[in-house]
């Protein structure tokens, strides 16, 4: 249905934009092991994006590439967190930390989706995202307890990105209509808070006390960053519309 398509589009756009962001680290990471690790995560996200966009496209007779390369900014459904710049390694790790704990709760529940395709995609994704969770949590600990500099950069990253957590857990008419085919975002918040808190506690960090940003990504209202991401991502495909690659 179009509703399921729209839902898949949200999740797919999150993953696609994140993959695009993470891909930038490959050849620029602090050590080779991280070129490999961040590359793996980017590839996983891109894989999820492809499955989700392919499924979403089925609702409107479009391919994954038509959706990725020929939609304009207000037609994207990514949440603001995924669009945020990489910043330094600490900012990227904080983004990963939030994303992976959120996506784990999401995909874990979606394995029981009444929509069989969504359930199948989630079943594959949840295992990969579990590894992303572990990767980010390890780095949160290393940076928090490593040196003064790494701790202060991590704290800055947390203050910078925590405002975008709220949007991930907002219910709306679509998630309500979808019922058990989807997950009510707000229903995941408690588990997200509990599990991220466990890591932050071990890292001797308090959850940042920062106001929540307004969001709007699910309605096509994006941060100023998305336009730049799309300009770069779509430039070649748009230059040769209809071409095959």
């Amino acid at each position, binding site marked *: 249905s179009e509703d399921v398509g729209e839902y898949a589009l949200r999740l797919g756009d999150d993953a*696609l934009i994140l*993959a*695009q962001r993470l*891909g*930038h680290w*490959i*050849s*620029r*990471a*602090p*050590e*080779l*092991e*991280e*070129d*490999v690790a961040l*590359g*793996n995560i*980017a*590839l996983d996200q*891109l*894989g999820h*994006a*492809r499955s989700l*966009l392919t499924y979403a496209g089925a609702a409107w007779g479009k391919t*994954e*590439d038509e959706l*990725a*390369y020929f939609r304009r900014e207000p037609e994207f459904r990514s949440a603001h967190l995924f669009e945020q710049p990489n910043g*330094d*390694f600490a900012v990227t790790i904080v983004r990963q930390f939030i994303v992976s704990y959120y996506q784990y709760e999401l995909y874990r529940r979606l394995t029981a989706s009444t929509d069989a395709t969504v359930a199948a995609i989630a079943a594959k994704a949840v295992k990969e995202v579990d590894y992303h969770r572990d990767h980010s949590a390890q780095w949160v*600990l*290393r*940076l928090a*307890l*490593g*040196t003064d*500099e*790494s701790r202060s*950069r991590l704290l800055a990253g947390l203050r910078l990105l925590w405002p975008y957590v709220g949007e991930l857990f907002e219910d709306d008419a679509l998630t309500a209509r979808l019922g058990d085919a989807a997950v009510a975002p707000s229903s995941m918040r408690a588990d997200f808070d509990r599990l991220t808190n466990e890591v932050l506690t071990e890292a001797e960090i308090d959850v940042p006390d920062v106001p929540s940003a307004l969001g709007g990504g699910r309605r096509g209202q994006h941060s100023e960053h998305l336009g730049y991401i799309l300009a*770069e*991502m779509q*430039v*070649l*495909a748009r230059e*040769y519309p209809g*071409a*095959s*690659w």
Partner: protein
Amino acid sequence: DAGQAYFDHVMAEDSRIEPRDWMPDAYRRTLVRQISQHAHSEIIGMQPEANWISRAPSLKRKAILMAKVQDEAGHGLYLYSAAETLGTSRDEMMGQLVAGKARYSSIFNYPTVTWADMGAIGWMVDGAAICNQVPLCRASYGPYGRAMVRVCKEESFHQRQGFEILLELANGNPAQKQMAQDAVNRWYAPSLMMFGPPDDDSPNSKQSMAWNIKRFSNDELRSRFVGMMAEQVRVLGLSLPDPEVRFNEDTKTWEHGPLDWEEFKQVLAGRGPCNAQRLERRRQAHDDGGWVREAATAYAAKMAAKNEAAA
């Protein structure tokens, strides 16, 4: 003495030297140089391709390209590990690279200006690398040979993907086909020069052959590579920018036109289009990552101390 005798025996038998075996200093030095140069090439070689990850024109191609560049980081890891068994640390080798004191393959000092370059690099540059590297799977130094086995397996996969990119473009619209031909034209000569200078101008080759860390001469490998390209380019429906490519029935080898070795030397000497950029980018990544590596080290030390105290 006994060490030298055993070493000579291994060479004569075409068998393998392992890290704990005695080996001549010059052999060790040559290997460290060769393996680390190879590792550096993998690392620097990520950049020209990473340049198109964000702009790959389909999600499938994006995924393949990402995986490829990531594989190159992996190759760098295996190779640095192999070099480390000879007593030089990765830090030290990386330090030489970012200080501009180490070499890497000159081919990566050319820019990737169109998407078709992803195809040409895969097909030609990786193709040349494979010709160079397959014989190294039998290199006399064990860890090196074993690393090369893994590398070669992935490289031939990459080469096929590059070929596919070009094939798709060559069968695409006229602008795409032109883009493909243009990339083949630009990468042809540089990839032939990847095999190093002509045999009569390659002073170190003889010793390396004697040590079984080089199996064929530069010109032999180059000729073999030209033959491979000449056959495959017809499948692509494209052409090589060298009218003198032909199979010599008398010598049973492939021949090609003259190469601009002056340009090769220029690029080797740092005057390539991207030498400064590639090195600066690596240096920047290395410097920007300093605080992260320090944090990881400090954290590991704290955890070790904690475990010690608890034990």
